[in-house]
């Protein structure tokens, strides 16, 4: 079963009386354990799709299943719970809390839902994840004392602290130099391969997208390429988005 399934998603913004359609019927499926890149130029609806996939927004029309839950029908509080349990976000500008240690940045998501964990368990979990991303010796450093790559790794640790099955990375290398970018992307690959975490990379950079096993191209509110992995292709995938995937399907783990 797919982790993500989108069927005929529309999203229209209303600016005053003018309706601006941004997504015009997007359908796609992503299987568990895939590493997918979402590519498109700015204004293509890439960010909107990413927000919808990340449960930060709800579609105007259409259906979205995430791990068996019909997200379209959830209230904003339920979506918040879902984000906490099933999604991790990594942002271009890291979004770490200033003047707060790496450890506390990482354990922050736990404070919202993990009321079953004691302080010590929370701390241990955060330490574990930080070691996992190779920052075992930087736990008490504040973001200002860390390099860009280290900050992004703290952000990745924060995204992983709740053991989510799905990780969103929104231009994760946009603020990093090429060397660090490679490191971070390699880390994503490793997370995908070793831990089986499904990863969606949102980018406009083909070099970054190359790290993914499948690339979904979005243009002008429609998916032009890569909406389904070959193994899970569907007949009703949308007439306009029927181009077969250009990359081999990500093998479900």
């Amino acid at each position, binding site marked *: 079963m797919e982790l993500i399934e989108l069927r005929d998603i529309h999203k229209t913004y209303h600016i005053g009386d003018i309706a601006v359609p941004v997504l015009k019927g997007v359908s796609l499926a992503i299987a568990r354990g895939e590493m997918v890149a979402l590519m498109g130029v700015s204004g293509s609806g890439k960010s909107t799709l990413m*927000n919808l996939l990340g449960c930060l927004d709800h579609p105007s029309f259409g259906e979205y299943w995430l791990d068996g839950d019909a997200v379209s029908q959830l209230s904003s509080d339920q979506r918040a719970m879902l*984000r906490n349990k099933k999604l991790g*976000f990594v942002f271009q500008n890291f979004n770490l809390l200033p*003047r707060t240690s790496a450890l506390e940045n990482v354990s922050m998501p736990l404070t919202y839902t993990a009321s079953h964990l004691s302080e010590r368990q929370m701390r241990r979990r955060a330490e574990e994840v930080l070691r996992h991303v190779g920052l075992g010796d930087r736990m008490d450093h504040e973001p200002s004392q860390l390099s860009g790559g280290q900050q992004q790794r703290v952000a990745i640790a924060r995204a992983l602290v709740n053991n989510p099955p799905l990780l969103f990375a929104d231009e994760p290398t946009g603020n990093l130099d090429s060397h660090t970018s490679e490191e971070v992307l390699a880390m994503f690959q490793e997370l995908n391969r070793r831990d089986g975490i499904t990863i969606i990379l949102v980018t406009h950079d083909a070099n970054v997208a190359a790290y993914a096993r499948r690339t979904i191209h979005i243009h002008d509110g429609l998916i032009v390429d890569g909406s389904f992995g070959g193994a899970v292709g569907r007949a009703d995938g949308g007439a306009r988005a029927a181009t077969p995937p250009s990359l081999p399907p990500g093998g479900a783990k």
Partner: protein
Amino acid sequence: MKGYRTIRTAMKALLRNPLRAMLTTLGIVIGVGSVIAMMEIGEGASTAMAKSFASMGANVLMVMPGTAASGGISFGGGSMTTLTPDDCTEIAKRCPSVRLVAPTVRARTQLVYGSRNWVPSSMYGTTPTYLGIRDWTVSEGKCFTDSDVQTGGQVCLLGQTIVRELFDGLSPIGKEIRVKNVSMRVVGVLGPKGSNMMGMDQDDIVLAPWKTIKYRISGSPLQSTNQSAAGNSSSSSINTLSNVYPSEATSMYPAQSAVQQADNPMPVRFANVDQIQASARSAAEIPAAIDEMTAVLRDRHHLREGEPDDFNIHDMTEMASAFSENTNTMTNLLLAVAMISLVVGGVGIMNIMLVSVTERTREIGLRMSVGARSRDILRQFLVEAVVLCLVGGAIGILIGQVVSYLVWRLKHWPVETSPTAMTAAVIVSAAVGILFGFYPAWKASRLDPIEALRYE
């Protein structure tokens, strides 16, 4: 999110910018500090007031003669000459709620000792029980006796001020002072009492047996004691010290107008006194004492049913309550001012919290994206405001205490710690935090995570 985690998160968020947190809460600190200082000084003032009332004598009741009127013309309070020393004895005998009772006769005249002279502000002729009524002690020597009162002995007690003025602080016991050419032996010195609530020096006093004052010195009833009046000035007539009754103009039987005589067809009394002072057994028995005294006096004055009293009984509790009402009004006024400063402090908190919400928009977006519900965000910012206010309140309590301590040390105003004020301050500052923290917190919780994450 668990409560203590919220509080910890709030504390951490505040400590990320400690200087700003301090400045934000300054309004609350000042507000609470002034409330505490006001309350402590106010409470101290009312305690001092209570003490000063106690110094006037506990549960004192004063019986004043009524106002005589003739043909529609009032002669002023005390112009009726109806109170007698016998009334006093009767009250002592027949009123169980009255502990002590003493007649007083007032005079105002010059004291002479050696080359010094002094006019005391009060000069009372009374009985030894007067000291009991006023809670007064004799610090040196002893009081005159009842037999001195009976015989009109030429003895007196002096207050501290007079000892200072006439004797330069030396012991006056056994010395003779001259009062209107009557020689009086000082038998005792009264303990110090300080000034009363009206600011009158209570130590500027001479006490003597009432018969002595009435017949040897004053020689006239109340209405003319303070007149420089005619006829009794000793300087204009020749007097010798051996003259026992120098004011010969005085009639033993006070003259009554024709109308008074017609109105009061009763035997003329031998002597009247200016006032009767009594003290009730306890504050609770004051009303009973007043009733009993009224009954006795009406009976003795042969007043018929429906006839108005020819005397007035004053009780100090009325005055005490009037005074404490005054202090309460002042305290409330100052409290209101302090409350206004609390509100101003609250507005300051709201202002900075709004700035903080704007500034931390990205943080809010991030928290939402990792799973904070809008109510978590609301709670976090609300708790931040409340923590800020409570910390401010705690510092304010400390500062208020320091201020009232300084006032006590430097200005010697009486102060008193007030637990009520502290509780109120804590509650009020928490309330201010909730009230003024709510809007910014609500605003934060309404943010759209997408917009918030993208906010620059």
